[in-house]
């Protein structure tokens, strides 16, 4: 008997709870933004350069707008990738939020009419002059949602690109200088491999392996081919010389041990750790690692250099701040975006290992960061930014991930290229 009473009590208690919950559920929705609140969302983690810099933008904004409070929420990247269109279709939207650049993300939302057109603001605030043409590509989208032309739907205050991180201590120990040509890099890799060291850290189960492949492809590609690939301006043939060279080189490096075959199952975090612990003297990955390495690597000195021999290099403007169509305080949102582009915020980005959009390195104290910014400017000024390999179709990331893994496991290069071709063609023909 007493047992049954306990269960009964428990039931009653939980039912009462759910009743109370129903009551607060109905009141929760009405707390939508009053004119004195600016709702800001982003998904860059605590301690990242972006969070540090954008916190400053919030402070600046609140100083300029007395009486307005900024209500900031840290969202998860996953949540925004999976649900952005559902969230933006509801009344529960932020006034300004970070969102991924690219056709499958911001392009898609702009096509669905869920974002505010920022073209006239870009002119009045002068964003169209602050962002160089290369960086504007990811800010503007055509009515079909294709980047590179049309109206402004977002603004980025930073940039990112792929670069080689190298362990200076290990390079010195083996008497290797910074490679400036592919031949020098190959010689360096051979030397490390002979000493039983895997030269490049890699993660096959994450974005890294496909980025190696893409850099190899870019070494023989042309700007026109990049435009065709990313913006559907012409035919893309995956069996051309550049892609064929890429798969062959990639497999050659695997067989010579320049990239470990068993990295096929690793994640980016593990590959990053392989570089941090000194297991591999090099890692080719995004500039987003710089801040992490600066705080975490204490045992050796390191530096960066651009992928040798390439005039084209993966990179683009960073994630965008966008203003949802249903935002309650658009004018305040524009002011906030403008605050993220000011010199004090840019300086914080630069000093914490991110790449600001401005080319000024004045006041940047860490030489690593100066080098990071200068390398980016080299690319930007020579129109060398080639975006990222997974952008063309919404499912291309998964396709590339699976195909590069097959490649690492010894699948035939031409089969891999055919798989890429069919996924790519399927999507492009669905665009109409």
């Amino acid at each position, binding site marked *: 008997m007493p047992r049954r009473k306990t269960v009964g009590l428990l*039931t009653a208690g939980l039912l009462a*709870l*759910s009743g109370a919950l129903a009551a607060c559920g109905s009141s929760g*929705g009405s707390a939508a933004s009053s004119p004195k609140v600016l709702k800001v969302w982003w998904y860059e*983690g605590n301690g990242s350069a972006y969070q540090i810099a954008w916190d400053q933008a919030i402070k600046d904004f609140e100083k300029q707008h007395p009486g307005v409070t900024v209500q900031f929420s840290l969202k998860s990247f996953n949540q925004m990738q999976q*649900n952005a269109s559902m969230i933006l279709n509801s009344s529960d939207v932020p006034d300004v939020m970070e969102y991924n650049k690219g056709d499958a993300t911001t392009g898609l939302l702009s096509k669905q009419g869920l974002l505010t057109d920022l073209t006239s603001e870009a002119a009045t605030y002068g964003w169209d002059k602050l962002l160089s043409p290369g960086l504007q590509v990811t800010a503007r989208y055509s009515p079909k949602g294709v980047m590179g032309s049309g109206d402004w739907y977002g603004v980025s205050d930073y940039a990112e690109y792929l670069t080689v991180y190298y362990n200076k201590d290990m390079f010195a120990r083996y008497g290797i200088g910074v490679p400036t040509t592919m031949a020098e890099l190959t010689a360096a890799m051979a030397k490390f491999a002979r000493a039983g060291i895997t030269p490049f850290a890699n993660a096959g189960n994450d974005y890294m392996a496909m980025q190696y492949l893409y850099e190899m492809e870019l070494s023989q590609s042309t700007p026109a081919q990049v435009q065709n690939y990313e913006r559907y301006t012409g035919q893309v043939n995956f069996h051309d010389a550049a892609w064929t060279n890429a798969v062959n080189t990639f497999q050659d490096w695997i067989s010579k041990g320049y990239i470990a075959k068993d990295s096929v199952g690793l994640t980016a975090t593990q590959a990053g750790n*392989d570089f941090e*612990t000194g297991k591999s003297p090099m890692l080719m990955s995004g500039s987003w690692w710089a801040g992490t390495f600066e705080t975490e690597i204490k045992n050796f000195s390191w530096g960066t250099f651009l992928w040798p021999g390439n005039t084209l290099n993966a990179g683009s403007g960073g994630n965008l701040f966008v203003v949802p169509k249903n935002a309650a305080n658009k004018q305040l949102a524009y002011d906030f975006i403008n605050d993220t582009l000011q010199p004090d915020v840019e300086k914080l980005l630069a000093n914490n290992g991110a790449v600001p959009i401005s080319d000024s390195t004045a006041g940047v104290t860490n030489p690593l960061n100066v080098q990071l910014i200068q390398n980016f400017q080299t690319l930007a000024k020579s129109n060398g930014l080639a975006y990222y390999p997974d952008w063309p179709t919404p499912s291309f990331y998964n396709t590339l991930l699976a195909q590069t893994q097959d490649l690492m496991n010894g699948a035939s290069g031409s089969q891999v290229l055919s798989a890429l071709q069919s996924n790519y063609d399927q999507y492009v023909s669905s665009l109409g």
Partner: protein
Amino acid sequence: MSAVLTRRRPARGKLARHGLAKHRGPAAWLVLAALAVLTAAVLFPFALIALNAFKPPAQYSAHGPLSFPDGFSTGGVSTFWQTADFGRALWNSVLISGCVCVLAVLLSILNAYALGIGRVKGRTWILGAFLVANFLPQEGLVYPLYDMAKAAGLYDTPLAVIIIFTVIQGAFGTYLLSSVLSTFPPELLEAARMDGAGRARILWRVVVPVSMPTIGVLLVFFFIWTWNEFFLPLVFLVSNSNQTVPVALGTLQGQHIMNPLTTSGAALLGVFPTIIFFLIFQRTLTRGVTVGAVK
């Protein structure tokens, strides 16, 4: 009425176990060794998470995830607690899982009473239809549910998630409990009827107490399943103040980089409540069961 239930099963079990211990041959030892290895394999990831959750960051970057910590740092756990507002998430998860497990069990009992004991016509088909709720991938359900929640003004409220999971879990509960109740001893029902009990009375005084073992298991499972749900809460609970534990864990996974130490701390915090719940309720419920059954 308790003829079936007063058989002295525990004593028989004891006897059997005793006999086994005497003749523990090499096969039994082999099984024991295999189980020990299996247990170690199951516990290893947890141990690794626990190690990394309290590892100093400098040591992790220098020696990687497998190194044994040379110091103790609560940085990972405390960073996560603050950034994710974990106390709040914990409360939301308890509330949602608690409501769902009780409501879904109630729903299952009522349905199963009709289907299992009431012998409704076409019950196999009805059960099949119920199971569709479990077979369909949640990605396929999400858009209709989203539109309904928005129309009802429940989008971004815990109530939406409670209703959805009550139905989904209730569907499985109905299926399971119906098959259990379809073998319910008819003598018991007949005896109760002869004593003048109505349908409601038979349900709450006879059927439910006797079926307590199954109901207890359902309750625990529903709680843990709902606790671990990620996709639908991610979609329906947009505001940070409504997030559940698995969704809060997701805030640590950045686009390119995540901090393994904070993630380990978070994983540890996230898995703890379910283990505690399981340990407490599994025992209470099993004991409650026997008391209820013998009456």
